[in-house]
């Protein structure tokens, strides 16, 4: 037992002695607001950055009750990433409570926000990551922010960012070719809330949902009725649940229209490791697989 411990201790020493070879590289402590963003930051940061996500896996990023531990994470962070566009409405309160005075990096600020035609007020759709080209923009923003925070590891950040962008471009191509194999009039999907606007616009799929852009709103009978009428007209046969959203309303719509469950989409939260969507790229592939299976003519 003691010998065992000694060995692991030696191993630890070994690790510690290897680390300083990279010109005293320190590990940046990064905090990301939610899991999808944390995954992208981890890919760009590589071994030089440890990332924690405030909202846990399968958690809803619109509504989040931060714990004191989250406040501590935020205070100790060297750099903070959030998506912006009104997604993390709870962040201001948390930053105030944690007396965090830094300036978080808003990764979506370089992305042209999209306001859906039916949206009330000046609501923009915050779910930018469901279109892969937007995440390429994220990657570049994150790379620049990390380089600014830790210039010594700039080369490493550039290399891993460009490797990740290559993977993202392959993913983007893949989704495009798979969706384009579906006849245009069948590219319609029913989900529980409007989280796939960017996906729809990038890849040419129409999404319908009983709940609006945010999960914080309560549905009205009029909207649900309109949705059921639309589905009767367009003939959707499959509906999807989302991992972080109340499924009861979309199930009600499905009952009224005879649509069958198509599985669980990961719209705005990754699954825990070992689940069907533990990282961003797997998440996009998982969602595309399910949707393509549902839209395929039968």
């Amino acid at each position, binding site marked *: 037992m003691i010998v065992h411990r000694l060995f692991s201790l030696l191993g630890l020493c070994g690790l510690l002695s290897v680390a300083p070879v990279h010109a005293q590289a320190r590990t940046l402590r990064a905090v990301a607001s939610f899991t999808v963003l944390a995954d992208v930051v981890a890919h760009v940061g590589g071994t030089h950055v440890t990332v924690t996500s405030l909202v846990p896996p399968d958690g809803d990023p619109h509504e989040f009750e931060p714990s004191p531990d989250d406040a501590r994470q935020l205070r100790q962070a060297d750099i903070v990433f959030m998506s912006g566009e009104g997604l993390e409405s709870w962040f201001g309160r948390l930053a105030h409570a944690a007396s965090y005075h830094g300036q978080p990096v808003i990764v979506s600020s370089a992305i042209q926000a999209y306001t859906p035609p039916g949206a009330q007020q000046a609501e923009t759709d915050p779910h930018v990551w469901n279109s892969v080209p937007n995440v390429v923009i994220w990657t570049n923003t994150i790379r620049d922010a990390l380089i600014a925070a830790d210039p010594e590891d700039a080369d490493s950040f550039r290399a891993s960012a460009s490797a990740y962008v290559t993977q993202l471009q392959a993913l983007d191509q893949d989704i495009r070719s798979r969706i384009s194999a579906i006849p245009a009039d069948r590219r319609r999907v029913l989900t529980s809330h409007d989280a796939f606007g960017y996906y729809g616009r990038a890849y040419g799929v129409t999404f319908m949902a009983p709940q609006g852009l945010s*999960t914080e709103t309560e*549905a009205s009978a009029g909207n649900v009725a309109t949705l059921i009428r639309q589905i009767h007209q367009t003939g959707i046969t499959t509906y999807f649940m989302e991992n972080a959203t109340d499924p009861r309303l979309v199930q*009600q719509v499905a009952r009224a229209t005879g649509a069958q469950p198509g599985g669980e989409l990961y719209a705005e939260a990754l699954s825990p490791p070992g689940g069907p969507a533990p990282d961003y790229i797997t998440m996009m592939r998982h969602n595309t697989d399910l949707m393509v299976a549902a839209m395929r003519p039968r």
Partner: protein
Amino acid sequence: MSLLSDLWDPFASFGFMRRALVASITLGMGAGPVGVMLQLRRMSLIGDAMSHAILPGAAVGFLLAGGLSLTAMGLGGIVAGLGVALLAGLVSRRTHLAEDASFASFYLTSLALGVLIVSARGSNIDLLHVLFGTILAIDGPALYLMGGITTLSLCLLSIIWRPLVMECVDPGFMRMTGSRGGVYHMVFLFLVVINLVAGFEALGTLMSVGMMMVPAATARLWTRRLLPMMALSAGVGMAAGLTGLLVSYHFSLAAGPSIILTCSILYVVSLLASPTGLRAGRGASSWQGS
């Protein structure tokens, strides 16, 4: 013609509207009379306390069942609500603490426990959100549950009617004749709890108290006799359910709040119009009067 079809069409064309209507009628029928009784016993705010007390039970049910299980959450809610009611009743009968004071301490304990459980688990489908309920998402099993609860509560209420009213009016008489007023009181609190559990699936825990108390207060403004008051209270709840759903349908407003606000409008109108309302001035509507 078009007005008539505006009233009729939503329910004729959409199953979810029919289910929501049946749900609100059922809820109104069960909760209205219980609300009148609560009011008569000067326990109007106990309903509010109980709705908070139910939270941890529903949360534990949610976690144990690993999802939105109506049975598990309902059972959990009943257990937690009854636990609080029993403890509060026991303490107020054994000590000199008033019942509302012990209720307050137990329901706050229960509520804090609930919030603790919810946040310890993280937020896989925000549980509080679930507890806010969506009347538009009512399905068959939920309707059966509500129907069963309403039937049970109307039956129980008619069985314990006489001793319950007696105990409200003159608790000393009950004690003197050796009747066990405490038992009836507990049965009544059980009714409050199950009606709130029936309501939380449809309207959420907070809104279901609205369906219980606002119609009762409205009915009180129009009559002093108990049975008509209960019937009127149930009627107000049901009418508000119908109107609220139609408003939500035609004006695209959230359904739950539309129903409760319709109750509130009826209440305000009654306040202004009824003979015992604001027109009558102070003191005219006390229970002991004449």
